[in-house]
């Protein structure tokens, strides 16, 4: 099993590190250019090209599919380049937003002509980094290596076009470099979106670059920090998805978000200049305390107002302390509550047993007749209904318990939370 885990993780992790390598560099330029959503727009235009290819009967990975995707991306790159010249009176992000929604809507319309289009669109969004192969990885290393080397040679004019005062004042002067940037960016995005999906590629692009910029304004240092943060976030996401038994793409996106949060906290509370650090710590303590106290206060108040409603915070406290609504039931109620819980569990076990019996009979021993199957189904349905009945009893008795609990737990919790929040707010105002 461990061998499988490592085998399934090795290539995706290597791919994630390669993606981080090239995207962090592009991300730093994107942040300088202040066109954060250019990636999403370009990725969506690229996805539109891939969708048109699928509808035209070509596989996305085929040469024809790649040609379609690349052609659409090149058009997107040209539009993004032109948008900078147009953006004298309006922010360039507005044009990027329009390009994104246009490409998304066009993809939906094109998909409407393909029976498997919805699946294709979903795949473009979440990707499938888990299934990357050795050949894919080699292709990425070669392609991104060439683009990375070219960018290294052209780094000065590219960075100047991205963020210099000159570039801001005279966009036309750097039009050629803008086109080089967006075209190469398009090639990278086209290639990575097909594997990692739009959401994850956005993370590879923006989060490591943001983390790098948090700690240094020097491009080289920010790049190194971004690479380290991106590699750590990728490893946390991929191994986290094993531990949580959850889809890799989604967990990796969360890992990137957590990395940004941690980096922000380190910057604010540890590496900031001393005076700023002290102020950040004070503000952090106040804000954190205020949020916790408000959550406790609102949760307590919600129990008092609606004891029959959902109480996630209270349920967590009950689970941690072992003090639940059954403590506030009468002896008879508690006995009924525990019995209903046990019976519901027994019904579920019986349903599972019947299910296993039917499943075994599909291939083992004498096959069950249609009437046998109907009888089993009917028993499963009856047990399900009986289980619902027991659940109703559990819910009803829990509500009765909570109706009493609200005065002993809800009211003090609300008072503690709101008083705490008021105290913190007053101290914070004095401190300011």
């Amino acid at each position, binding site marked *: 099993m461990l061998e499988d885990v490592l085998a*399934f993780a090795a290539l995706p992790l290597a791919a994630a590190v390669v993606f981080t390598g090239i995207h962090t560099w592009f991300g730093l330029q994107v942040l300088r250019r202040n066109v954060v959503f250019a990636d999403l727009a370009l990725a969506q235009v690229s996805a539109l090209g891939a969708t048109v290819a699928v509808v035209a009967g070509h596989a996305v990975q085929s040469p024809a599919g790649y040609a379609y995707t690349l052609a659409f991306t090149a058009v997107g790159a040209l539009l993004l380049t032109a948008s900078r010249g147009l953006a004298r009176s309006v922010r360039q992000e507005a044009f990027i937003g329009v390009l994104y929604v246009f490409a998304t809507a066009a993809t939906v319309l094109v998909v409407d002509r393909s029976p498997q289009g919805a699946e294709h669109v979903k795949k473009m969004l979440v990707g499938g980094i888990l299934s990357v192969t050795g050949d894919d990885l080699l292709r990425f290393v070669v392609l991104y290596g060439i683009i990375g080397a070219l960018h290294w040679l052209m780094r000065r004019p590219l960075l100047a076009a991205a963020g210099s005062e000159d570039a801001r004042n005279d966009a036309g002067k750097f039009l050629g470099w803008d086109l080089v940037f967006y075209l190469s960016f398009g090639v990278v995005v086209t290639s990575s979106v097909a594997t990692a999906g739009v959401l994850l590629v956005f993370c590879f692009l923006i989060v490591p670059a943001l983390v790098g910029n948090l700690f240094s304004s020097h491009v080289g240092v920010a790049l190194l920090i971004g690479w380290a943060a991106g590699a750590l976030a990728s490893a946390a996401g991929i191994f986290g998805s094993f531990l949580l038994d959850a889809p*890799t793409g989604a967990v990796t996106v969360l890992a990137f978000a957590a990395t940004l949060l941690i980096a922000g906290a380190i910057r604010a509370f540890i590496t900031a200049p001393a005076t700023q650090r002290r102020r950040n710590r004070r503000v952090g303590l106040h804000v954190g305390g205020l949020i916790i106290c408000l959550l406790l206060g609102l949760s307590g108040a919600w129990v008092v107002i609606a004891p029959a409603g959902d109480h996630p915070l209270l349920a967590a406290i009950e689970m941690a302390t072992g003090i639940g609504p059954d403590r506030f039931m009468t002896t008879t109620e508690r006995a009924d509550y525990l019995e209903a819980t046990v019976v519901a569990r027994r*019904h579920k076990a019986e349903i599972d047993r019947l*299910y296993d019996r039917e499943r075994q009979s599909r291939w083992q021993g004498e096959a069950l007749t249609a009437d046998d199957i109907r009888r089993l*189904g009917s028993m499963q349905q009856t047990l399900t209904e009986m289980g619902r009945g027991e659940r109703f009893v559990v819910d009803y008795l829990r509500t009765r318990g909570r109706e009493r609990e609200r005065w002993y737990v809800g009211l003090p919790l609300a008072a503690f939370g709101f008083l705490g929040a008021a105290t913190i707010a007053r101290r914070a105002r004095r401190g300011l």
Partner: protein
Amino acid sequence: MRIVASTSDLASLAQAVAGDLAQVETIVPPAADPEAFEPRPSDLARLKGASIVIRVGLGYDDWLNKLLMMHGDAAVNRGGAGYVDASVGIPLLEVKGSQLDPTARDGHAHGLANPHYWLDPANAKTITGAIAEAGIRVAPEMAEKLIANRDDFLSRLNASLARWEQLLAPHRAARLIAYHNTWPYFARRFRLDVVDVIEIKEGVAPSPARLAKLAAIMREQKIRLIVHEPFEPEEASQLLARRTGAAVVKLAPSVGSLPAANSYLALFNYNVATLAQALSAVSN
């Protein structure tokens, strides 16, 4: 008479019963995933003037409820003469429901039981019976012809079923992994053991931990074949196949999902022949 079926499988069976007495139309295009289908305005127009509407039921084509409600013709709504829920009378498998355990991981987000019942050819008898009954209710003058058409279809089906069972008999109790929980009815009819499925939540990619667990099961139980469907993402199945040395075989879950499966009988002709061939290849 115009018959509208939610899926191509039911449309094919309806065509077999109605013959040239009716025009049969399908709402979900062949090869599309009916569980993820979103109806369009043209589908509402398709329902206009329909004498009979046939659905899979069991939550599989829930989107039809809204269309029927908007359509408003009582005759083809629940309880109407032209309304056919083809699941009625079927011996249903995996009747668990989601009421006891909302986090149940059986691959179907809703519904009373596994809805892929048309994949047991023996169930076609019940389904065509319900279609013929609806036809007779709507157009009693066609009763004789409808019954004759159905009898003719069932005799062809029974002859084919014997042949299909014979083809897969040497592979009785063969162990398989499926991408989606589509095959319990098929497995029951042909005595196959679908040990586990890759996708346990509809539309959610499997986690690497699940793939590692499946790889271990496949090695331990010497499972050499993964059953895949045309509209499902291939990456996870291929990854698992590469890791375990298993083969991936693509079967048609519905009429029209693969070119060779262009009618209800052709669907089983293709699936049985392809599976028998794949099982023979991996056992050698």
